[in-house]
């Protein structure tokens, strides 16, 4: 028997069915709009996918450890609100808030702190992650809106730099997203802490018996998720130039969809960073393509829904094909 290092197990098939769906969708859009298959458009898609992708990278770590972070969008909102509070001055003449470079350390520190708070609350209060982050989703959003008084704050200065900067004609957020995804992948597959995180997600009971410091590892995962939320928030705000109450609203849904669609198991222990990236791209491509072909606004959600249903059927069908020859009855297959 000879084996090889298999960093992230049993996700291959799902990633392939995702590749197939993404290819199908792309070919469809390309045939309807000649501007779809275009280098400029690829740049757009990547740039628009960046916030989702970054959020999804953090969420992949959390879900791999058998957690969930519903508060990621609220963290994006609150971290940016805190950043403005700490490093913004309202300029009445320009109707905008001037910012200093301090917004970056403040937003990032806030993201890390809020994520850590999620983990600490889960650990100390012994709650399920779902309850904790459902609570902090509400709490963080309330705090964020409290700071901005639910108003729209136009921003200027260094806060815009990250979202708008370009390198070789490609938006810096794209590099950030790729970097985060690679870092996430290396972390999960190559570092001892990443492997321990997968172990905790795979079997919390074994983790205790093996002497893994589950609580510390969860802090790492949730802090990473908070960090990713804050970075996603910085990109969104940097690009659009406002901190608005809807910032990050519903982000948790998109991001969790991307992670699960990408083949990471909600029951922990199995993760696919590559799948997460692909699924983030798929979700963005749908919106992008719909606008390019000038679709009816009411059709957007129909297409989104149908593609989700196709993706899940493709996955179920491939699982069926794979296990067709096993004598074990379907109910007992994993």
């Amino acid at each position, binding site marked *: *028997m*000879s*084996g*090889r*290092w*298999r960093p992230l*197990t*049993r996700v291959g098939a799902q990633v392939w069915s995702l590749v197939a769906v993404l290819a199908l969708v792309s070919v469809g859009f390309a045939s309807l709009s000649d501007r779809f298959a275009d280098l400029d458009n690829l740049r757009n898609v990547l740039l628009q996918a960046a916030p989702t992708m970054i959020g999804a990278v953090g969420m992949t770590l959390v879900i791999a450890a058998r957690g969930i972070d519903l508060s990621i969008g609220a963290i994006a909102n609150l971290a940016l609100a805190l950043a403005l509070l700490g490093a913004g001055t309202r300029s009445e003449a320009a109707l905008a808030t001037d910012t200093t470079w301090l917004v970056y350390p403040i937003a990032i520190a806030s993201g890390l702190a809020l994520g850590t708070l999620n983990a600490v609350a889960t650990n100390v209060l012994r709650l399920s992650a779902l309850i904790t982050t459902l609570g902090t989703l509400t709490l963080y959003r309330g705090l964020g809106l409290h700071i901005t008084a639910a108003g729209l704050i136009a921003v200027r200065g260094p806060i815009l730099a990250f979202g708008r900067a370009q390198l070789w004609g490609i938006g810096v957020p794209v590099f950030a997203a790729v970097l985060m995804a690679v870092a996430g992948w*290396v972390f999960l597959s*190559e*570092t*001892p802490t990443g*492997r*321990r995180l*997968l*172990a905790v*997600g*795979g*079997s919390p*009971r*074994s*983790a*205790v*018996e*093996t*002497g*893994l*410091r589950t609580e510390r590892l969860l802090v790492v995962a949730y802090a990473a998720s908070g960090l990713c939320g804050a970075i996603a928030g910085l990109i969104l705000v940097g690009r659009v130039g406002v901190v608005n109450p809807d910032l990050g609203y519903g982000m948790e849904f998109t991001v969790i969809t991307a992670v699960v669609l990408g083949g990471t198991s909600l029951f922990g*222990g*199995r993760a696919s960073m590559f799948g997460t990236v692909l699924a983030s791209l798929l979700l963005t491509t749908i919106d992008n393509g719909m606008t390019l072909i000038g679709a009816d606004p009411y059709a957007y959600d129909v297409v989104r829904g149908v593609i989700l249903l196709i993706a899940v059927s493709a996955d179920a069908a491939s699982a069926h094909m794979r296990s067709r020859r*096993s*004598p*074990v*009855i379907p109910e*007992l297959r994993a």
Partner: protein
Amino acid sequence: MTPDPPERALLGVASVGKSFAGIPVLQDVSFTADRGEILMLVGENGAGKSTLKNILSGLIAPDSGAVHFAGRTLAALSPADADRLGIGTIHQELSLFENLSVAENIHLPRLPQRFGRVDRKRMEAQSRAVLQDRLGAAIDPWTPVEELSLGERQMVEIAKAIHRSSSLLILDEPTTCLSLPERARLFDAVRRLRDHRYAIIYITHFMEEVYELADRITVLRDGRVVGGGTPRDMPQEALMRRMVGRDLAELTTVPAAVADDAPVMLEVDRLGDGVAVHEVSFCLHAGEILGLAGLMGAGRSEVAELLVGLRHGEGRVTLAGRAFVERSPRMALERGLVLVSEDRRRDQAFLNRAVRENLSAAMLPVVASGPLGLLALDRERQAAEQAAMTFHVDHPGLEAFMLALSGGNQQKAIVGRWLQRAPRVCILDEPTKGVDIGARAEMHRLIREQAAAGVAFLLISSDLPEMMALAHRVLVLHKGRIVGALSRAEAEAHRILALASTGRVS
């Protein structure tokens, strides 16, 4: 009894006590274990062995008493302490990460690293060293554990504990899934560790293991130390009396003979699934106990799963004279064929549901009435109470979670679940695995009683004394095929083992 005062030996347990919800499980327990010796910790289930093991591996803290280790006194250990002190534990319920590789399982929580990355080369070399060189197990270090058989997983669990420990190794019933050669290799490894000045605490209830390995024996009963000494001080009879607190005479009983005119209850003709089972044919009569022997992975459990429809396959099954074609667990139950499968936690117990519901899970059609399928809760409760009494399930209340029961009582409750249905044919897959001597004897008595009442049993067991004590005939499986059928007179341990291991009569 103790050669050293507790603080002088490597490990000294001094007057340790522990209660759960007010019920004492350990009282004033003291013993020592020193480098270079194998201490056998024997006792029935519920005697407190597992609690003691959990205290020593840092999973729970004792209420009173202290643990001395290498000259230091600790009120309690944490898993991290255990790790630092070099205490390795093999838990009875495997504590592996199925989603990770063998090598990672062996090394966690301290993975070797280079420049912040996992050092795979070193990890692979160290895994091979412990797996192949020490235990002689040909398991590739990069295989995910989920792809291993139960026996292989047990070897990984052992390798993991050996790798972690540098001073004390605790083994809790480590051989339940092992074939004979694997078991022999494990014993070799354990002896070699002793020679390397390890202290070994070996928890078991298998008598032959006690006398094969022990340097010293400590007996636990009802949470107290009730005896100890060298194997020479304690012959088997005396040891068992200490453990159980009463004499056991049933070991010599012979099962009642099967009547010549007993009807055929189960007839199996060329059963197979194309993967694990091939052309298995046999007959089972009313009142007969038919043993199905073989090594782990020989296809024994798969035969059982084929019979009740948990696997698809070909071949004909005739149940009480009628063909049994559309096989499913539900149809099997209706036709009077039940399976008590091996993996209790995974496949049988509803751990976070009430004991009552666990007992009645196979009785639902019986306690339901009317077109709506309403449950007669009173009847269900009575039946459950009755079953708990009949099958000696010791429980804190029928509404308590199944989780609250000890392993042995869980097993009795599950066997009770199935036998309540008064089946014609009962398949028992490792019915006494992880069960203490008292419960095991009760289980054997029960099987004999039921067989005498006409139930046909197909008994799958790795425990050869059990097989020889119970079975009228023994079939031996090798690589999914029946390679021998032995009558009671022919069924001797070495013959069964030879057939099971090689597929041929030696």
